[in-house]
């Protein structure tokens, strides 16, 4: 019987081995300008079980640019821990050379210049090639989709997710869990799930009326691969009816439910599972806490917070794998399972460099087939950007600065609010902005842009509430989004204070005056979770604004003063 100490040594040995032979090489190869598909896929097959993880694709079927965050702060025990390290510190932590492909894939610095060198990332036809290559090594590898798949594009919106269902089915996944899928509405979700050719898992998806498990979403599925019994337990996004409009799926209740997770782990172990994998949409810090409270999980495939980590994080004897977003990465995890337990692992986060990986012809044709009915609408050029447009970051991104500017101008508002979602590709300086690009950062089933009046006090309450969803020191109280983006107003935030004391110095930018708690301000925003919100769709507001501008440019945003980092 292997001891915990031995286990750690085995694990570290596997990591070090991979670090030396796989990841560390990319920098050198790049310096020699010969990054190849073989280099990206190179992997000495290990152990007897292979997991392939994709997550948070957000309906990005085609290659895109995606800038990783500059600011991604952790609080409490997560402070200064992965994934809350960015930029040069991140590169140093993993020994990534400046200017290397890994620098471009995993950090934000010099993004526009490196994008010129290394090109676009993602594309499900390239993802298909990677999956096929892994299956060539290990034919019975499990392909697991962490969710946020059927949301986030023009075609996904107009086909109610069918485009992504068709393309993902061609990749032949073994199981999936969920988040934004539910914003299609429960009827549509049920219709798709009833016909899915793979398992739709969620141990925390409950019937809201009776607070009991559903038949449609079983908690787990047992697989047998190469004589090894593998349990995959699903964990959907816990806070769906809070972070997204619950009225769209009133039949369902979620929550973290880690007591039930423990029961499910015990149940599958009793059924003979030799390795237990949790396919999670918790978010990384929630997964870390869950791994510390639930015993018996070998691997957590983590989604939701869009982190991409070149090595798993170890919590007790559980490894947590973070595989990025928007189709930019595929994780391969090989496990050595013997004597009823995981003895070691080998992992590789494979960045999907679109110009390096050959598209799978069959999936490429299938993607084009989904897009064909809409191709004229998708490709219409609305304007151009002089600036890099990106979204990720805790407090603001230039895409949301532009969206907020559009809301203020088009809706004649004092202040604009844009939700702190983490999906949405980037646009390089000089690039055309097509209608598809606008939809990639705005598409949703509750995208109406409201215009209303709010008191200064109420605006403050909203900021405090959202800040606590991000900076509560207990990860179980975090919802995994970023701070609501604000246009037309500045503020100061001390991330280490409790709710009610973080936000101060609210300032109306156009006058330079402090926000008066008693005064009413005209606020324009979008993505309200409440039923009956009225206004034009946000993508129309943004399109009108960009069309009028012709060429857009976004000045650096210094209106949020952050302390306590």
């Amino acid at each position, binding site marked *: 019987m292997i001891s915990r100490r031995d286990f750690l040594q085995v694990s570290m040995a596997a990591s070090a081995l991979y670090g030396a032979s796989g990841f560390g090489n990319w920098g050198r190869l790049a310096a020699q300008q010969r990054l190849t598909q073989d280099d990206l896929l190179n992997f000495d097959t290990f152990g007897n079980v292979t997991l392939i993880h994709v997550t948070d694709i957000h309906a990005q079927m085609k290659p895109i640019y995606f800038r990783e965050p500059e600011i991604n702060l952790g609080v409490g025990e997560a402070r200064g821990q992965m994934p809350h390290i960015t930029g040069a510190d991140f590169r140093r932590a993993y020994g990534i050379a400046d200017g290397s492909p890994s620098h471009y894939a995993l950090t934000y610095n010099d993004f526009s210049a490196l994008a010129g060198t290394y090109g676009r990332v993602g594309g499900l036809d390239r993802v298909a090639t990677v999956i096929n290559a892994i299956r060539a090594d290990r034919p019975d590898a499990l392909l697991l989709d962490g969710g946020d798949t059927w949301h986030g594009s023009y075609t996904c919106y107009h086909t109610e997710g069918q485009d992504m269902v068709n393309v993902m089915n061609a990749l032949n996944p073994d199981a999936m869990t969920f*988040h934004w899928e539910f914003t299609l509405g429960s009827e549509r979700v049920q219709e798709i799930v009833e016909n899915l050719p793979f398992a739709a898992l969620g141990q925390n998806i409950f019937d*809201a009326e009776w*607070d009991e498990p559903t038949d449609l979403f079983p908690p787990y599925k047992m697989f047998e691969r190469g004589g090894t019994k593998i349990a995959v337990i699903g964990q959907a*996004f*816990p*806070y*769906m*009816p*809070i*972070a*997204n409009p*619950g009225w769209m799926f009133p039949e369902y*209740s*979620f*929550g*973290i439910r880690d*007591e039930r997770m423990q029961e499910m782990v015990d149940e599958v172990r009793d059924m003979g599972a030799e390795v237990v994998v949790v396919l999670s949409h918790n*978010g990384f810090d929630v997964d870390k806490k869950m791994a510390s409270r639930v015993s018996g999980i070998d691997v957590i495939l983590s989604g*939701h*917070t*869009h982190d991409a980590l070149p090595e798993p994080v170890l919590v007790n004897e559980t490894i947590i794998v973070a595989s990025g977003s928007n189709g930019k990465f595929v994780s391969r995890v090989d496990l050595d399972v013997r004597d009823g337990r995981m003895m070691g692992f080998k992992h590789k986060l494979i960045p999907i460099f679109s110009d390096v990986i050959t598209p799978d012809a069959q999936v490429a044709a299938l993607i084009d087939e989904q897009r064909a009915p809409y191709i004229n609408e998708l490709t219409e050029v609305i304007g151009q950007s002089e600036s890099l447009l990106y979204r990720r970051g805790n407090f603001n991104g230039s895409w949301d600065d532009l969206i907020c500017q559009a809301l203020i101008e088009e809706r004649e508002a004092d202040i604009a*609010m844009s*939700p*702190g*979602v*983490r*999906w949405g590709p980037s646009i390089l300086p000089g690039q055309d902005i097509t209608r598809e690009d606008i939809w990639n950062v705005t598409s949703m089933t509750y995208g109406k842009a*409201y*215009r*209303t*009046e*709010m008191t200064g006090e*109420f605006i403050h*309450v*909203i900021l*405090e*509430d*959202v800040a*606590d*969803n991000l900076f*509560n020191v*207990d990860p*179980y*109280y975090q*919802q*995994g*989004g*970023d*701070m609501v983006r604000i246009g037309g107003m500045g503020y100061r935030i001390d991330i280490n204070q409790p*709710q009610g004391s973080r936000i101060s110095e609210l300032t109306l930018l156009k006058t330079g005056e402090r926000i008066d708690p008693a005064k*009413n301000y005209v*606020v324009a*925003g979008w*993505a*309200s*979770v*409440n*039923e*009956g*919100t009225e206004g034009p769709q946000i993508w129309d507001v943004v399109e009108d604004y960009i069309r009028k501008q012709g060429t857009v440019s976004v000045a650096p945003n210094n209106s949020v003063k952050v302390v306590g980092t």
Partner: protein
Amino acid sequence: MTFTRRETLAVGGAALAVAALPAKLMASTSDLIAGVTGGAAASADGIELTAPEIAENGNTVPVAVSAPGAVAITMLAGGNPTPGVAKFTFGPGSAEQSASTRIRLAGTQDVIAIAEMADGSFAAVHKTVKVTIGGCGG
């Protein structure tokens, strides 16, 4: 435009957070526990409270409590205008000493359960349930 309470709710903010009682007006969790135990110390073991970390709907929050061997379990919502929620009593014939219900919470607060054991000792547990505006999930 005028801004009615109904519209406030439709804007992206349940007004629940606004309605939350200021912390200073809430009786402290330990005071509430002492009020039930008559000042006697309460063990942290022997009682389990299941409640969501964040309420999906503050108007109907499912909670469950279990305390093997208890003769009575009192449940309190520390931040509600009237903290008392329920007192469950268990006779000698009870197969198990557990109960579940749904409660309304005025805002983020501690939900508290105190069990009185057959020997007259107490066990208590509390859990913070957050009531939030939400709406910005990644």
